[in-house]
């Protein structure tokens, strides 16, 4: 941690501070709880002259992302942040940002979607946007939020990727909770993020960078019907595959300057594990605490924290879960009428073709910010041990912490 400054930051402040160090060209945002602090802090940086950013105070989230799309198309580094209904209002623009291959970075302070209206955390907002073509990174603590807020630029702007990135942090649990965060010196961040790089495209006036430039005009995102749309979607699918290669490259580079190593998945005590939990975000800190307790009691418990949900790390997941016989999946979002929560479905899809696969149980928890205590996680492990003993899954989808 040499040369790093230890700061007391909540998750939102960690985003704002990292973004200040990146010094993006444009920030366009609209305040919504629990993301507001990000934009508040950042607008202070603008007012104090600490950044060169053009701050656009828009009238809605739809306009926030639209402004970022225009700015990014013109070659700017553009940042925004939102949560819940704000993300819902951005909906059509999320697909346009990714379809136009604009590496915008957006922080999502995860919050439950209305209605009924609710402001605490769950993943219904970002999970709803899982098919919008954005890379999604989920953070466990403010340190991860800070680190992801820097790495996101390099990941999205990687020449083989060129996709927008969501940095997801649990509302209040992370966004409003102060933690110790090691921050890099400004010049190290500047060297790491450097300048935005552009891919070359063949426009109708010859080869040029993918950015709007009056000297060599391009038409970006025009009418694209039965004759070309499908090919462009395949390019996005391929870009996500390329991201699976690019993310470890960027993570390795970041580890060199920060001493903090990140991966798609972070396993914990998964050597001889019999019962494991897979999940996203801040809850995984609680799960780790419970795993330590259970290990002391002689239970072979483990966990896998998923940091990158999009692109979904299929091969890495198969390798990391290995031959664990029972796997519980934590879903902080419901998919109404679906076989299970979004993470559960993708985990089961991942293992379907494997000759050896774990028995998988979905645990939908924490909706609308319902507290998730260590006791609750312990209950999940006990339930998983029951599955192990019986050798079969009785309830595929369980709801944890809800009154019956």
């Amino acid at each position: 941690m040499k040369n790093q400054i230890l700061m007391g930051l909540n998750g939102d402040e960690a985003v704002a501070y990292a973004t200040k160090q990146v010094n993006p060209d444009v920030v366009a945002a609209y305040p919504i709880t629990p993301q507001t602090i990000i934009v508040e802090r950042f607008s202070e940086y603008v007012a104090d002259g600490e950044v060169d950013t053009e701050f656009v105070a828009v009238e809605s989230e739809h306009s926030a992302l639209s402004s970022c799309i225009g700015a990014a198309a013109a070659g700017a580094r553009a940042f925004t942040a939102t949560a819940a209904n704000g993300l819902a209002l951005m909906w059509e623009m999320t697909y346009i940002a990714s379809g136009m291959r604009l590496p915008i970075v957006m922080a999502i302070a995860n919050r439950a979607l209305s209605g009924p209206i609710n402001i605490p955390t769950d993943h219904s907002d970002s999970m709803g946007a899982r098919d919008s073509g954005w890379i999604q990174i989920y953070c466990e603590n403010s340190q991860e939020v800070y680190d992801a807020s820097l790495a996101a630029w390099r990941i999205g702007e990687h020449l083989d990727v060129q996709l927008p990135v969501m940095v997801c942090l649990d509302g209040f649990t992370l966004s409003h909770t102060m933690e110790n965060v090691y921050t890099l010196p400004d010049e190290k961040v500047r060297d790491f993020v450097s300048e935005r790089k552009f891919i070359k495209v063949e426009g109708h006036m010859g080869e040029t960078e993918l950015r709007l430039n009056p000297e060599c005009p391009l038409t970006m995102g025009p009418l694209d019907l039965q004759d070309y749309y499908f090919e462009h979607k395949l390019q996005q699918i391929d870009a996500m595959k390329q991201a699976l290669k690019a993310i470890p490259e960027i993570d390795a580079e970041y580890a060199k300057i920060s001493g903090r190593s990140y991966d798609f998945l972070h396993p914990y005590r998964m050597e001889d594990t019999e019962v494991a939990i897979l999940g996203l975000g801040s809850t995984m800190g609680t799960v780790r605490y419970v795993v330590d307790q259970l290990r002391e009691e002689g239970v072979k418990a483990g966990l896998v924290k998923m940091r990158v949900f999009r692109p979904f790390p299929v091969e890495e997941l198969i390798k990391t879960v290995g031959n664990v016989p029972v796997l519980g999946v934590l879903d902080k979002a419901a998919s109404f009428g679906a076989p299970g929560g979004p993470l559960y479905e993708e985990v089961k899809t991942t293992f379907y073709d494997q000759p050896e696969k774990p028995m998988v149980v979905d645990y939908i928890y924490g909706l609308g910010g319902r507290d998730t205590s260590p006791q609750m996680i312990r209950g999940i492990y006990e339930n998983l041990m029951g599955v192990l003993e019986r050798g079969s899954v009785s309830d595929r989808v369980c709801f944890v912490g809800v009154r019956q």
Partner: protein
Amino acid sequence: MSERFPGWRELPKGAVSPKSSIEYKTGDWGVEKPGIDLGRCTQCTLCHFFCPEGAITISEDGHPEVGMDYCKGCGVCAEECPVKCIEMVRKR
């Protein structure tokens, strides 16, 4: 269409139009095309101004001409013609 379309690996990324709108011929979209009775045409040029595609030009002698590379057969010209000398006819 005999034109060879590029595959996804060849296409420019970023949903950049693979060709300009001049080269992007949309004339084959139409089911109908305007049939103009030039004998009754008063050369008012309203069809030229109303055409949403800019596909109707006015010739030197003042008569409208339909560019079939771009005409989508929408029928706006036939609707707007004050003397009803344009009739939409089915393409064969």
